[in-house]
C-alpha cells in the first residue's frame, strides 16, 4: 500500500467514542442499572487452603431482603480430572475458580454468594452463612511449592509419577544445546526471581445480569470479550448460547485480566434464582485478592557465545506460579524468551506450578516479560564479559527473515534489526549521564495473534457509514476501524460511525487480547468494505445501464471507466444510497474470518535511571521505546500502547509486588500499598514507531499492544546496574533492596 497516498490511515483522528468518555457519559458495567435490580455479593474463604466440609446458608436465606443464595452446587460440575477446553481455558478450572468446590484453594476464593435488596443486607447475609472448613497446610511461593514435602493442592496432578504441584511442562528445542555450550568461549548463567504483579486496571470487575422466566438472559459486563462471557456462562450454567445476550459495556482497562469471567455466572445464577436483575461489582480489595494477577517466577538462563559475540547456545528454565489452578503463561515465558535472536542451539523449558494464591490471568504479553527479564539481563552481562556494546551484541545475533525460532516458526520479513538500529542511532543512546545515573537497554518479542473476527459495514440511507465489529474497544480501536473504512471508501472520516456489537448483533469474534484487534478487525473490515464498494459500483452500473466491470470507485464516488470513461457524471456515496431501494435494496456487507498471518512483534528499549543513594529510590529519567508495528493505523493510540506498556513495566521492575502475611493472605490489597507508578514517578515516555509492513496484512499491520511490556524489566535492571555497578536478580528493585546494597547492614 502506498503510504504517501493515505488520507486517513496514519492520521491522528478523534476517536468515535471520545466525546462520550470525556463527558462522563460512557456507560461502564458498574454504571448500568435495571428496574427491580438487586445486589449480589460473594463470601470468600479466609483460608489459603481448606477442605469445605459443609456450607449452611439457611440463616442467610431467612434474612429479610435476601432474594437468593448460591454455592458451587448451583453451577455445572466439571469433574476435576477431565479437561473441557474452551479456547485456552479449561472449564474444570474455570468453574472452580468462580466458586470453590471440594476445597478452598486461596484466601479470597469464593465459596458462596447472596443477592439482596441492598448492598448492606447482602453483606449482612454473608456473615450468616456458616462454612465448616478443615484447614490444610498451604504454600504460596513457586520454589516452596516444588519442594518434596510441599502441601499438594490437587491430588490427581502428578509429575514424573508422583503427586506434585507441577501441573504442566512445555519444552522448545532447537539444535544441540550441549554441543553449542561446548563450543562456546564465554558462558553466563544466572537465576532470577519475579513477584506476581496485578494488571491494575482502574475499573474493578462488574456486571449486571437479567434472567427472564423463559430463560432469556442479558449480561452487561466489563470484559475483553462478550463472546467469551457468553460461552463461559453457558458452560458454567448449562444455558444454550442463543439464550444469552452478552453486551460489552465500555471497559475500564483489562490488560488481559478481563479475558476470563469471575462475577458473571454468579450473578446469572442469583438472577435466575431470585427472578430479579442482579448487579455485582468487586471492591478493589476483592480485585487484588481474587482476580488476576500474573505469575511470580523463578528462572535460570544460560547463554554461551564465541569471543566475537556470536551466540551459540541458550538454555532457559522458567518456573511460573499458576496460582491455585493450572494455567500459567509458560508458553509466553519459554516461547518468547529467546525469540528475538538467531541462536542455533536452544533449549527452553517452562513449568506450570500451582500454589495457594489466586489463579493467574493473562497480563499483557503473558509470560513474555518474565522470560525476557532473565534473558536480557544475561545478555547484558555477556556483553560486559565480551566488552561489547549491548546493542551491538543484540544486533549481531538479531533474528531476521529466514531465522528459525525455537518455538517453531521461520520468520518472514520482521523488523527487529530496525528497532536496534534505530536505538543505536538515537540521540538518547549517546546522551551524557550524571553521577548515580545509568543506562540500560533490552529487547523483546511477542507472538501476536489473529483468530476469529466479524464485521458488518452498512451504508445508511443518507450515504453515511456504520461499521460494527465484535471486539470490545479497550484503547481506541474504533478509531483505527474508522480510519481504515474512510480510507478505503475515500470519504471523510466523520462520515463513519463505529460500534461494537453484542453477541446477538454481530458474528462471533474472539477476545480483545493477544494484540489481535486492530490486526484482525482491519482484515474483516477491509473485506467487508471492499464488498460494499463492489456493490456500490454495481448500483452505479445499473443506474448508468453499463457493465459493472466498467465502473471504478475513486475518491468516494463511482466513475465510469474504460470505454465509458467520462460518459456519465460520477455518483457519490450519497447519490447511490438515495437510490438503493430501486437498484436492489439496502447496501451493506459483512465478513467473518479466522484470520491468520499475525506475525511477531519486536521492540528495543533504552532506559536511563538515577539512584538516590540516601533513599534507595530509583527514578526513571528518560525512556525511549522503538517498536516495529508494521503499519500504524492511528499513531497516537500506537504510541499510547507503547507508553502504557512501558509504565507498567517500570512498575513491575521497581515497585509492584504481592506481599503475603503469615496466614497466607495478601497483605497489600489496595492501591496505597500495591504501588503502581503515579504521574510524578515517571518522565515523558518517548516512542519511535518503526514500520516494516507485515506482508500478510492488507494494511501491513502487526500487533502492537503487548510487546511494550516485554523489555522494560530488564531495561530498568540493566540501567540500575550501570548506575550502581551492582546487579539485582530479583524484582521489584524497591528502595529496601537498593538500600541494602548501598548501605550493607554491617557497614
Amino acid at each position, binding site marked *: 500500500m502506498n503510504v504517501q497516498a493515505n488520507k486517513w490511515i496514519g492520521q491522528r483522528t478523534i476517536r468515535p467514542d471520545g*466525546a462520550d*468518555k*470525556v*463527558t*462522563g457519559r460512557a456507560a461502564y458495567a458498574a454504571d448500568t442499572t435495571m428496574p427491580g435490580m438487586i445486589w449480589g455479593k460473594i463470601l470468600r474463604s479466609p483460608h489459603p487452603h481448606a477442605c469445605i466440609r459443609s456450607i449452611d446458608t439457611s440463616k442467610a436465606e431467612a434474612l429479610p431482603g435476601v432474594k437468593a443464595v448460591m454455592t458451587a452446587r448451583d453451577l455445572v460440575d466439571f469433574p476435576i480430572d477431565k479437561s473441557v477446553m474452551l479456547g485456552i481455558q479449561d472449564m474444570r478450572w474455570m468453574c472452580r475458580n468462580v466458586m470453590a468446590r471440594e476445597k478452598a484453594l486461596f484466601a479470597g476464593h469464593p465459596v458462596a454468594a447472596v443477592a439482596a435488596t441492598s448492598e448492606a443486607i447482602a453483606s449482612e447475609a454473608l456473615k450468616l452463612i456458616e462454612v465448616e472448613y478443615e484447614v490444610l497446610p498451604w504454600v504460596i511461593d513457586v520454589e516452596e511449592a516444588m519442594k518434596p514435602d510441599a502441601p499438594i493442592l490437587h491430588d490427581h496432578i502428578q509429575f514424573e509419577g508422583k503427586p506434585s504441584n507441577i501441573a504442566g511442562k512445555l519444552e522448545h528445542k532447537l539444535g544441540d544445546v550441549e554441543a553449542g555450550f561446548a563450543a562456546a568461549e564465554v558462558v553466563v548463567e544466572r537465576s532470577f526471581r519475579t513477584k506476581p504483579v496485578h494488571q491494575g486496571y482502574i475499573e474493578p470487575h462488574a456486571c449486571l445480569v437479567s434472567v427472564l422466566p423463559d430463560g432469556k438472559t442479558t449480561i452487561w459486563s466489563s470484559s475483553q470479550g462478550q463472546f467469551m462471557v457468553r460461552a463461559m456462562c453457558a458452560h458454567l450454567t448449562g444455558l444454550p448460547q442463543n439464550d444469552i445476550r452478552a453486551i460489552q459495556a465500555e471497559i475500564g482497562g483489562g490488560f488481559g485480566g478481563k479475558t476470563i469471567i469471575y462475577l458473571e455466572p454468579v450473578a446469572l445464577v442469583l438472577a435466575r434464582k431470585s427472578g430479579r436483575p442482579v448487579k455485582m461489582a468487586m471492591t478493589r480489595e476483592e480485585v487484588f485478592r481474587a482476580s488476576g494477577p500474573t505469575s511470580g517466577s523463578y528462572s535460570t538462563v544460560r547463554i554461551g557465545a564465541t569471543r566475537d559475540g556470536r551466540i551459540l547456545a541458550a538454555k532457559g528454565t522458567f518456573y511460573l506460579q499458576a496460582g491455585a489452578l493450572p494455567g500459567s503463561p509458560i508458553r509466553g515465558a519459554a516461547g518468547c524468551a529467546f525469540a528475538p535472536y538467531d541462536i542455533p542451539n536452544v533449549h527452553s523449558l517452562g513449568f506450570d506450578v500451582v500454589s495457594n494464591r489466586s489463579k493467574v490471568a493473562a497480563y499483557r504479553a503473558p509470560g513474555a516479560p518474565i522470560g525476557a527479564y532473565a534473558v536480557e539481563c544475561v545478555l547484558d552481562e555477556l556483553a560486559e564479559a565480551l566488552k561489547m556494546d549491548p546493542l551491538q551484541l543484540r544486533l549481531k545475533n538479531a533474528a531476521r527473515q529466514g531465522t528459525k525460532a525455537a518455538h517453531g516458526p521461520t520468520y518472514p520479513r520482521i523488523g527487529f534489526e530496525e528497532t536496534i538500529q534505530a536505538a543505536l542511532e538515537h540521540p538518547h543512546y549517546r546522551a551524557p549521564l550524571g553521577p548515580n545515573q545509568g543506562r540500560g537497554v533490552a529487547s523483546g518479542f511477542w507472538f501476536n495473534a489473529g483468530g476469529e473476527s466479524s464485521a458488518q459495514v452498512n451504508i445508511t440511507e443518507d450515504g453515511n457509514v456504520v461499521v460494527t465489529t465484535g471486539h470490545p474497544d479497550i484503547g481506541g480501536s474504533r478509531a483505527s476501524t474508522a480510519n481504515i473504512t474512510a480510507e478505503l471508501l475515500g470519504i471523510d472520516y466523520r462520515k463513519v460511525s463505529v460500534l461494537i456489537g453484542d453477541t446477538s448483533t454481530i458474528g462471533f469474534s474472539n477476545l480483545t487480547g493477544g494484540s489481535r484487534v486492530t490486526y484482525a478487525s482491519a482484515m474483516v473490515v477491509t473485506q467487508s468494505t471492499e464488498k460494499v464498494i463492489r456493490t456500490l459500483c454495481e448500483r452505479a452500473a445499473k443506474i448508468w445501464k453499463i457493465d459493472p466491470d466498467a465502473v471504478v470507485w475513486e475518491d468516494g464516488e463511482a466513475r465510469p471507466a474504460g470505454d465509458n470513461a467520462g460518459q456519465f457524471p460520477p455518483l457519490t456515496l450519497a447519490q447511490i444510497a438515495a437510490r438503493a431501494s430501486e437498484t436492489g435494496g439496502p447496501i451493506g456487507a459483512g465478513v467473518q474470518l479466522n484470520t491468520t498471518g499475525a506475525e511477531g512483534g519486536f521492540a528495543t528499549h533504552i532506559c536511563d535511571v538515577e539512584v538516590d543513594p540516601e533513599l534507595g529510590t530509583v527514578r526513571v529519567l528518560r525512556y525511549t521505546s522503538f517498536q516495529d508495528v508494521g503499519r500504524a493505523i492511528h499513531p497516537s493510540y500506537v*504510541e499510547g500502547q507503547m507508553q*502504557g506498556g512501558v509504565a507498567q513495566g517500570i512498575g513491575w521492575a521497581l515497585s509492584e509486588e504481592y506481599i503475603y502475611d503469615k496466614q497466607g493472605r495478601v497483605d497489600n490489597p489496595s492501591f496505597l500499598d500495591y504501588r503502581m507508578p503515579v504521574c*510524578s514517578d*515517571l518522565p*515523558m515516555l518517548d516512542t519511535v514507531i518503526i514500520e516494516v509492513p507485515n506482508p500478510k496484512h492488507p494494511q501491513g499491520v502487526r500487533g502492537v499492544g503487548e510487546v511494550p511490556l516485554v523489555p522494560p524489566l530488564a531495561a530498568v535492571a540493566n540501567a540500575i546496574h550501570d548506575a550502581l555497578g551492582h546487579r539485582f536478580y530479583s524484582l521489584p528493585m524497591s528502595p529496601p533492596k537498593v538500600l541494602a546494597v548501598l548501605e550493607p547492614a554491617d557497614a
Partner: protein
Amino acid sequence: MAKLHVSTTINGEPTEFLCEPSQSMLDVLRGPLGLTGSKEGCGSGDCGACTITLDGRLVCSCLVLAAEAQDREIRTIEGMAEGDRLHPLQQKFLEMAALQCGICTPGVLMAARTLLEQNPDPTETEARFWLAGNLCRCTGYDKIIRAVLDTAAEMREAAR
C-alpha cells in the same frame, strides 16, 4: 436509621437528596442522582477516579460523606462541558489521545481543570505532582501531561 435530607448545588443546579448518614458522596452521585461520570476505582481515596470539587476544592468523593454536601457547591465531570461546547481540556484530551479506556478520565479532567484554575502556567513537574493522586494504568501519563500543558498554553493565549 432515618435518612438525612441534604440540600446542595451540583453543577450549578440546586439539588436535594436523601442519604444514609454513612453514605459517601460518590455513592449518592452514582446511585440516586444518576451521575455516573464519577467512577469508583478503589473506594479508599487511592485512585482519584471519583474526583469532584467541593466548594472549588478537589476531593475524592468516595471519602466525602454525602451529608457534608449540605449548602455546598459540587462540581462533577457532567458539568464540565458547557452545553455542546467541550471544555478546552476535554477537547485537547480527544485531540491528543490522552485517554485509552477512559475510566480515569473524568477524575483526571476534574483535577486538571482545578490545576489550571489555580495555576494557569504549570511546569511539567507541577502538573505531574498535582495529578499524582489520579491513577491511570493505560497511558503512562505522557499524553495526559502533554494535553494539560498544551491546554494551559492555549488558554493563556486565549486570555490575552
